[in-house]
């Protein structure tokens, strides 16, 4: 197996040809911000937060979608990138009704953490305040789209890991919504197996376990790794 040697933020690192810049950076302690990426499901490069500068390439590249190459020189945290990331997160906040103080994920929310990390103390944009309903029809889980950032982690984990594909996205642009089945209430969904994987991967409090009050919800992100590793090693037969 040939190994690729590259430079990330001035640090010389090595990775396998099939690895992405994102994976190699995290293995070496360089934490590139991300919202849509989660280990165990496919990458889509949608959130644009992991964009990095690669010397010799005109365009910014999504680190989670770009494979490592020999001799790459990557910069992950220039002033320009930080300014872009800040505005991107502000746009996410302005697009829905994110109210941390009443959210079940307060204190453990990836969006909140990202904002703190980027030093966002206020949003310069005008909030859109879209009128959005809460779906509490499922017996164990709830969905509050006010807190959704459309990362589609739930869609991918449901399709690729659970195999149910209950979730999908309806609409386009600012009108995009996560829907179950064909837009039915979650509780009325025939395909949902109530496995709860979507709830665990959701970066915010958009998907939550019922019965948790403000700032009580904590999510287990590690379970996905066990499932995927076990499947790769054929520790069980389907």
């Amino acid at each position, binding site marked *: 197996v040939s190994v690729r040697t590259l430079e990330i933020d001035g640090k010389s690192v090595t990775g396998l040809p099939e690895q992405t810049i994102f994976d190699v950076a995290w293995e070496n302690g360089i934490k590139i911000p991300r919202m849509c990426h989660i280990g165990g499901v496919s990458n889509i490069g949608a959130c644009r937060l992991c964009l990095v500068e690669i010397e010799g390439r005109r365009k910014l590249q*999504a680190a989670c979608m770009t494979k490592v190459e020999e001799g790459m020189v990557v910069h992950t945290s220039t002033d320009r990138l930080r300014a872009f990331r800040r505005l991107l997160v502000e746009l996410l906040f302005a697009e829905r009704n994110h109210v941390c103080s009443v959210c079940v994920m307060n204190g453990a929310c990836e969006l909140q953490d990202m904002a703190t990390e980027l030093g966002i103390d206020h949003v*310069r*944009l005008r909030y859109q305040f879209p009128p959005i309903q809460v779906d509490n029809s499922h017996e164990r889980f709830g969905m509050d789209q006010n807190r959704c950032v459309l990362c589609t982690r739930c869609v991918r984990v449901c399709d690729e890991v659970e195999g149910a594909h209950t979730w999908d996205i309806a609409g386009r642009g600012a009108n995009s919504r996560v829907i179950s089945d064909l837009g039915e209430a979650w509780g009325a969904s025939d395909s949902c197996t109530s496995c709860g994987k979507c709830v665990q991967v959701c970066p915010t409090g958009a998907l939550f376990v019922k019965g948790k009050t403000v700032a009580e919800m904590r999510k287990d992100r590690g379970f996905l790794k066990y499932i995927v590793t076990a499947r790769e090693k054929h520790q069980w037969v389907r």
Partner: protein
Amino acid sequence: VQLHDILLRMTRGDAVASDLDLLQEMCELLRETSLCGLGQTAPNPVLSTLKYFRQEYEAHIHDRVCPAGQCEIGVQAVEGGRP
């Protein structure tokens, strides 16, 4: 959506000075971070006008006047001006 919101406020004379920087920054963000060609080129008209007709944007903001006479606020200064 946000870009449209700012431009709309400009035509009504409700924009403030910081909106101009924000407009520029957002256009650059869109141009640099988009995956597809549409996103990469869509902000170009706005960026070009910012580059070549910046004084018109400034007239909208500071004097609440539309020099070209195309916007709601009109060519004449609004009585009283900005509070």
